[in-house]
């Protein structure tokens, strides 16, 4: 009753108010909805990768009798019963002579061992799509009844290099390649980046020259990464003649990309050191360089490190420029120096993603999970460093 009275007499009553409030609610809901969509993309994405990658943690092994003698060493296929030969990994069979060489006692014996199964058997065991002949499938089923087939932790994935045989392929060579490449990247971009930041923040006057440098750094951060690959190809490989596909060229190319990140974060860290520190230094008669070296830089160091780690994480996930400089070569053995041909983790993921065999899908997803774990830990370290050493002035 009272409400009705108000509506007719109240001079401030706005008949469109209800509509406006509904519109406001709708708007808020819309905003929330967008955010939820964005987050659910992330959740869906991660769960998709996990569900695809988890099977790769396990690999099928089959218990078979292996005969070690002169004949089987010459032709290692002979070491295993004809019926079982088809379901064992070709790569595993190929390694039989090596195993005897490592352990001469095996000679002229017959042993029951767990052998790595063929990728199709593995896919069959995991309930994926498989291509097995009926005969071989029957053999696997029989062995399964006798408990001679098992899935066990796939340590090969972390101890082997790349292979054209899916069950034998691992991430190790790419991991070593990534470490070597990033080592080059950080050795180049960290000192140059920090020195540039120190110059711009502590020494430079605000003149044309500094402005050009600053505009440049901003532009450098926005240039598509693939163009850095073109630079690497044209200058490092064609002009300087550095070895193609090597960690050296890849590392140098990435270092130019990491440079702006390190400069920007280091500058922010230097800027956050209060002026009173510098003035106290001058008051005690220190020179500018002494103040920066002994006082400002140590105080800004946690911030500088945080920036370096973020830059490192970004360089680690970069693929496009490395493909251009040829770092997608097939590398079964880990590189031992920065001038050897190498591949990196994201490039390995790219190569595996393009393989026709179904078994590579889980390898790819597992590689992705490994890469994401490393990246997330790096970022977590950066956040931790920032929290721990953050000083409120």
């Amino acid at each position: 009753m009272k409400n009705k009275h108000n509506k007719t007499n109240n001079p401030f009553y706005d008949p469109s108010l209800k509509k406006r409030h509904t519109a406001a609610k709708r708007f808020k809901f819309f905003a929330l909805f967008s955010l939820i969509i964005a987050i659910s993309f992330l959740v869906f994405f991660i769960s998709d990768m996990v569900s695809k990658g988890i099977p790769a943690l396990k690999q099928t092994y089959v218990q078979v009798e292996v005969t070690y003698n002169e004949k089987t060493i010459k032709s290692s296929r002979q070491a295993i019963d004809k019926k079982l030969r088809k379901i064992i990994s070709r790569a595993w069979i190929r390694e039989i002579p090596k195993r005897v060489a490592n352990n001469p006692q095996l000679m002229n014996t017959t042993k029951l061992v767990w052998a790595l199964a063929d990728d199709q058997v593995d896919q069959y065991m995991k309930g994926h799509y498989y291509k097995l002949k009926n005969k071989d499938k029957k053999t696997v089923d029989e062995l399964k009844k006798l408990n001679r087939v098992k899935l066990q932790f796939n340590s090969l994935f972390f101890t082997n290099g790349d292979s054209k045989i899916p069950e034998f392929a691992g991430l190790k060579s790419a991991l070593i390649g990534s470490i070597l490449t990033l080592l080059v990247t950080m050795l180049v971009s960290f000192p140059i980046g920090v020195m540039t930041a120190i110059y711009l923040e502590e020494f430079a006057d605000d003149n044309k020259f500094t402005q050009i440098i600053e505009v440049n750094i901003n532009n450098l951060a926005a240039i598509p990464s693939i163009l850095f690959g073109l630079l690497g190809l044209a200058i490092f490989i064609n002009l300087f003649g550095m070895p193609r596909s090597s960690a050296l060229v890849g590392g140098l190319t990435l270092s130019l990309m990491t440079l702006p990140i390190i400069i920007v974060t280091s500058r922010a860290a230097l800027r956050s050191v209060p002026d009173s520190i510098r003035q106290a230094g001058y008051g005690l008669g220190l020179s500018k360089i002494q103040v920066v070296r002994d006082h400002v830089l140590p105080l800004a160091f946690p911030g500088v490190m945080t920036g370096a780690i973020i830059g490192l994480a970004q360089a680690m996930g970069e693929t496009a420029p490395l493909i251009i400089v040829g770092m997608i070569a097939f590398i079964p053995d880990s590189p031992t120096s920065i001038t050897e041909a190498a591949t990196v983790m994201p490039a390995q993921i790219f190569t595996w993603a393009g393989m026709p065999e179904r078994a590579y899908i889980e390898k790819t997803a597992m590689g992705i999970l490994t890469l994401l774990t490393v990246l997330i830990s790096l970022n977590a370290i950066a956040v931790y460093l920032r929290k721990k050493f953050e000083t409120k002035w």
Partner: protein
Amino acid sequence: MKVKKKSNRVFQSKNRTTQVKETAIKYLLIAASIISVLTTFGILFSILFEALEFFKLKSFVYFITGTEWSPGVEGSKFGAVPIFAGTFIITLIAMSVALPIGIFSAIYMSEYASPKTRGRVKPLLEILAGIPTVVYGFFAAITVAPFIVTVCEALGLNASFNSALASGLVMGIMIIPVISSLSDDVISAVPDSQRKGSLALGLTMAETIKSVVLPAALPGIISASLLGVSKALGETMIVVMAAGLRPNLTMNILEDMTTVTVRIVDALVGDQAFDSPATLSAFALGLALFFVTLVLNIISVYYIRKFKEKYKVNSL
């Protein structure tokens, strides 16, 4: 300015050797900062020279107006229009995903969410930005593209496994954090007095945002969007893995298309001689990409500077 220069002179050591050493250090620092300039010019000139080599062999006019791209050994034709069109369409798809979601997410985070929620959600979105693009590419090729094909089959449509839609959608997801993060910073930087004034006049929260906050933050939002576009144009791995290789001049987003970056990668991973037109065409495409992204970036910086000057914020 003058004071600062003077101060540089004052704070020098009286010791002669130290003085020499310190001057040397200073020049070392300057040398380091010149490297960033050298890199930009290095990129520009290395691409420019190789592109000029290409245009010596093939016509520039046909490159920007021709509609046939066939880099064979004999009778090769380099008309980049279908490639530019494909890039444009995929970028358009990506932006139509990323723009609404990114901006509305930013509005929710800066206007509605409590500081606690914002502090939790923002890092989550930044994870999205930190995922390597090769991972997105795998996701697009293995999960999204087959899904689109299945859905289209159910609807009676014919979709390619390399459809522009799949790579565009996934690229859109990748760009969401680029837009939301910067937009969120800009919207938060709009002074609170404006919001309060509008609310005091009786406007609802939504009306305040629409008619006061967003117009004020517009330069920043434009800047964020342009950065998103430049990121979409230069994105490589997603399209290399999920989009096609065939230059295809069409408006049908269910067909396969190719982009500038795909053709660059394709031209350079082959075994052709470095001075063949097929290889050099990568640099011509790279040059086009460089200029477009550079212009977008310059406009973006201009808008963000305009916003900063208007509201006197330094934190962006």
